[in-house]
């Protein structure tokens, strides 16, 4: 009689996606719409965060098209100054607060726990809460805009223009409060990411072996933690100046208009690095995978990220060179603003060296990275130009600056983001995007972008200021504005190609498999899309490129299947320490977000909103944190 081949023990999985039925049940959401509302699964929340961010991207893009159409000809009558001023304010506000930061955090919310090898993000209900707060803040400002009460003083809303004397009504109040929403959401995610990256990494994933994307998200999260309080203070002071008569920014009563600028830009400069540093991590992931080798000079890359994060806080005065601050102080900020180019230069070298000594496959993700090089480096160089005080005094507040920041933001963040979408889409959805459509997407975007924004350098130099709803006939600006407008429509077409690509892939795209790109990091070790519990056993990592070993992947068993548990490891060496129960799905993050929204919106109309609105919020938060009898994740079952 043939002996049966010994079967593995019943709950010892053979693959990371092979979890037992009990494990799947433990990590499952409630069915249907209620499940969607109450989920604390970082993947479901990450997906909706990404989709919402992209919706705002498209909305802000449409505003840009409208602006460019108005500016295509001099003295155009498509819209008057009030509408235009709201448009550019909403465009900037939406892009910066509702798209750029949230989308980077969104991708991180999805990818980071998987790349760490764990089952969920830290503080899962806070994650759900963060999404709702973000959504409600974005919806609030867009409804305000639709009702002609949208912001009108630009995305950085200088005072005294933004004070109640010169911006009467509720427009600026809605804007300032929207900042509070998005700031709360961003800070929540930042704290989750720090805890996830430092405490839940797979055993063996020492800091030295940690992927550069995790480094970039760790640094970004610390930047969020130290930068966002500044805009919180700034916008709160603005609201109180407008609503209850404080004098922070009122020069007639001891205040100062520049206090706003200092507080805003102390946040605002790190903000652009908060947008940029995640993209640097995305580029490293893509370059590594598609060059088929680890990134060259890993330590230098980590140091480059860390120094970028630090220096980002020392530059903010370069936004204020024209305000008449002492010259010597300005010169310090020139030097600092130049110095931050050095870590970026190191990174560019390192990536080029990696591609050059690897065996690259030029798929769409890598194409977008190449586009990043061409566009971001140019933007970085105009940044060096702007760092010089005298030159900045000519081109500050002109279309030259508009060109610069679009080169660094679109080149430095949006191109890598699209690369990341093409890269991680198979993981998110289990389908591949079309490579052909991807190439069309890339080239239309690349060409359209340069056609739109390159002429703007020239326009600024020949005298065209920013934020003008029209311009005179005889300035010599007509042709270049028209060209820029044509480019804008090309960008719009490329966005359409992307949307069509995504929709078709979701419906009938080629199935992706676990690791279609043969990538080295842990998120590719499990199924596409991953099961709710991510990994049936906890991966153990022995190198910086775990999936490039030819052996079976090592893993640790022992996490319980009957309650939601993750493994906590030490911060530097990732040695297993304790297990930690995580909460089950809950609707209280949603109710708390609604209560917070009521408080924030009420307080736009009356200061008592803060007091009375605090009551339902306190109730909702209390119930949220109160351990329910059936949520065993919140208690220890092994007390000493």
């Amino acid at each position, binding site marked *: 009689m043939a002996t049966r081949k010994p079967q593995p023990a019943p709950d010892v999985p053979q693959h990371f996606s092979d979890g037992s039925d009990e494990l799947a049940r433990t990590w499952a959401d409630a069915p249907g719409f209620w499940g969607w509302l109450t989920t604390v699964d970082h993947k479901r929340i990450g997906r909706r965060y990404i989709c919402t961010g992209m919706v705002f991207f498209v909305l802000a893009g449409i505003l840009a098209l409208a602006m460019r159409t108005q500016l295509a000809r001099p003295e155009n009558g498509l819209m008057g100054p009030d509408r235009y001023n709201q448009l550019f304010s909403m465009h900037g506000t939406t892009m910066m607060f509702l798209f750029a930061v949230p989308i980077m955090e969104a991708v991180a919310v999805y990818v980071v726990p998987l790349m760490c090898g764990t089952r969920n993000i830290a503080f899962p209900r806070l994650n759900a809460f963060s999404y709702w707060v973000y959504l409600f803040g974005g919806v609030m400002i867009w409804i305000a805009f639709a009702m002609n009460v949208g912001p009108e003083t630009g995305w950085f809303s200088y005072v005294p223009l933004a004070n109640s004397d010169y911006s009467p009504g509720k427009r600026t109040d809605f804007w300032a409060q929207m900042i509070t929403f998005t700031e709360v959401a961003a800070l929540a995610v930042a704290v989750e990411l720090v805890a996830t990256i430092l405490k839940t990494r797979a055993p063996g994933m020492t800091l030295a072996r940690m992927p550069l994307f995790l480094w970039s998200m760790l640094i970004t999260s610390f930047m969020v933690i130290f930068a966002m309080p500044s805009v919180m203070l700034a916008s709160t002071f603005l609201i109180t100046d407008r609503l209850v008569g404080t004098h922070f920014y009122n020069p007639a009563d001891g205040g100062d208009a520049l206090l706003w600028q200092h507080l805003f830009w102390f946040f605002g400069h790190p903000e652009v690095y908060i947008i940029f540093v995640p993209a640097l991590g995305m580029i490293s992931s893509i370059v590594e995978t598609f060059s088929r080798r680890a990134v060259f000079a890993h330590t230098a890359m980590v140091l480059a990220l860390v120094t970028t994060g630090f220096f980002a806080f020392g530059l903010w005065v370069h936004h204020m060179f024209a305000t008449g601050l002492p010259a010597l102080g300005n010169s310090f900020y020139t030097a600092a603003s130049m110095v931050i180019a050095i870590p970026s230069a190191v990174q560019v070298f390192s990536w080029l060296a990696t591609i050059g000594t690897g065996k690259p496959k030029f798929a769409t993700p890598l194409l977008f990275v190449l586009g990043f090089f061409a566009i971001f480096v140019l933007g970085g160089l105009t940044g060096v130009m702007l760092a010089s005080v005298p030159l900045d005094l000519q081109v500050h507040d002109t279309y030259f600056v508009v060109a610069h920041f679009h080169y660094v933001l679109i080149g430095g963040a949006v191109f890598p983001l699209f690369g990341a979408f093409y890269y991680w889409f198979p993981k998110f959805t289990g389908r591949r995007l079309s490579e052909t459509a991807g190439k069309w997407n890339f080239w239309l975007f690349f060409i359209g972008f340069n056609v739109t924004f390159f002429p703007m350098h020239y326009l600024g130099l020949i005298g065209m200021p920013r934020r003008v709803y029209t311009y005179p006939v005889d300035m010599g600006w007509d042709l270049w504005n028209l060209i820029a407008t044509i480019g804008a429509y090309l960008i719009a077409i490329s966005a359409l190609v992307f949307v069509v690509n995504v929709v078709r892939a979701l419906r009938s795209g080629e199935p992706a498999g676990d690791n279609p790109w043969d990538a080295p990091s842990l998120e590719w070790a499990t199924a596409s899309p991953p099961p709710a519990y991510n990994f049936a056993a906890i991966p153990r990592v022995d190198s910086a490129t775990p999936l490039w070993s030819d052996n079976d*992947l090592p893993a640790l068993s022992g996490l319980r299947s009957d309650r939601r548990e993750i493994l906590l490891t030490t911060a530097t060496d990732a040695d297993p320490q304790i297990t930690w129960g995580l909460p089950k799905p809950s609707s209280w993050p949603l109710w708390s977000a609604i209560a917070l929204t009521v408080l924030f919106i009420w307080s736009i109309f009356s200061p008592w909103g803060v007091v009375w609105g605090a009551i339902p919020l306190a109730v909702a938060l209390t119930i949220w944190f109160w351990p329910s009898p059936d949520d065993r994740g919140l208690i220890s079952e092994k007390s000493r």
Partner: protein
Amino acid sequence: MTRRIAIVGDVSELADYGYGPQALGWWGVLGFVLIEGMAFVLAIGAYLYLMPFEAHWPPALRPPDLRYGTLFTIVMLASVVPNQLIKHAALREDEPAVRRLILIMIAFGVALLIVRGFEFTALNTRWDLNAYGSIVWAIMVLHTIHLATDFYDTCPLAVLVHVRGIDGRHFSDVEDNAVYWNFVAFSWLVLYVLIYWLPRWLS
């Protein structure tokens, strides 16, 4: 392309809670402390920034009265004692001590909120008088929100530890709460010097 895995170890013997940086909740409190600490630093920065815009400082009849502010500071510092005690009680998992001490913390919280209320009446300035008044009130309100939130946090925790047995996770929560309380206390020290003493040293 589905990779096989090989089980090389087991973690089922590990404890399922811990203290200090071992516990995940501790990192949440740390994050919160960093955020709010930065907010205080910036508010202090705004205060110092606004000083040169007035001929003399403070631009008010008098600086804030010392009486309530100092009383608050004394009581706040005193509260650190039971706070440290409850933290150590949680670390050694001493249920009766935790139950006792948390009631003492609640009492301190109530006392502090009452004194803080009186403090607001003795600031000798209003938020809408000038920028000085605005920043003084802003700092006071910011700190009071933290005080109130921490006090509010402690209440359900107090109920919880009395109504049920305290398990490892809850001891960990008590420790986290104590860490936050220390932040509220020590941040106040700096703010106290700024609001009550700096104007006196300058004049």
